[in-house]
């Protein structure tokens, strides 16, 4: 994601990076280390030891796993979270066997992000800084 955020410096993007303990190990230490390695005022880092977010988004994305992870989701300016998170406007993943969304391609993902920032419906949004 660092590459995407370096490419799109627009501060109308906000990012939630959620750490779920998929493989165990030194979860707390690694979470802290990785979060401090890329400080960006647009990013909020969340540590999710009980995989609340992973479980919740699995119901939305249906990756056919217990927990959705290694997923990259984009929501446009008008997306609203009512009872559950909405379907993303666009998403990619790095999971084997998942065909309902494309495998992560950083260039494509960056283009989609720019596209959402330039969406005509987003009337309150300014033009993208590039």
């Amino acid at each position, binding site marked *: 994601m660092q590459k995407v955020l370096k490419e799109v410096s627009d501060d109308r993007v906000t990012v939630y990076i*959620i750490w779920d303990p998929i493989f165990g190990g030194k979860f707390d230490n690694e979470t802290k280390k990785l979060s401090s390695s890329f400080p960006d005022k647009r990013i909020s880092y969340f540590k999710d030891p009980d995989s609340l977010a992973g479980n919740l988004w699995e119901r939305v994305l249906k990756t056919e796993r217990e927990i959705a992870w290694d997923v990259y989701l984009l929501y446009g300016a008008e997306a609203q979270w009512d009872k559950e998170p909405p379907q993303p406007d666009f998403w990619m993943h790095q999971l084997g066997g998942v065909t309902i969304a494309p495998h992560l391609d950083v260039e494509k993902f960056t283009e989609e992000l720019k596209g959402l920032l330039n969406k005509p419906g987003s009337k309150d949004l300014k033009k993208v800084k590039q």
Partner: protein
Amino acid sequence: MKLRWTRKNLIPLVVLAFLVLPSYSVSSFAEQKKDKQTKPPVIKAGQVIELRKIDQLKEAFQRDTGKVRLVTILSPT
């Protein structure tokens, strides 16, 4: 003449104090107090928030309506 601190003497002093004190200082104090109560805590870059309830994420998501939101769930190990 010795001043005696009776209720009768204090009332004009309190009234005088309110007249002398600039009104903005009272209102700005009230605004500062309100700001402290309503503004979310400032999150420093790189700070990690422990997710205890999914509502923490929901609140952030809803608060950021109007922005494009990128959500990713990753394993740190």
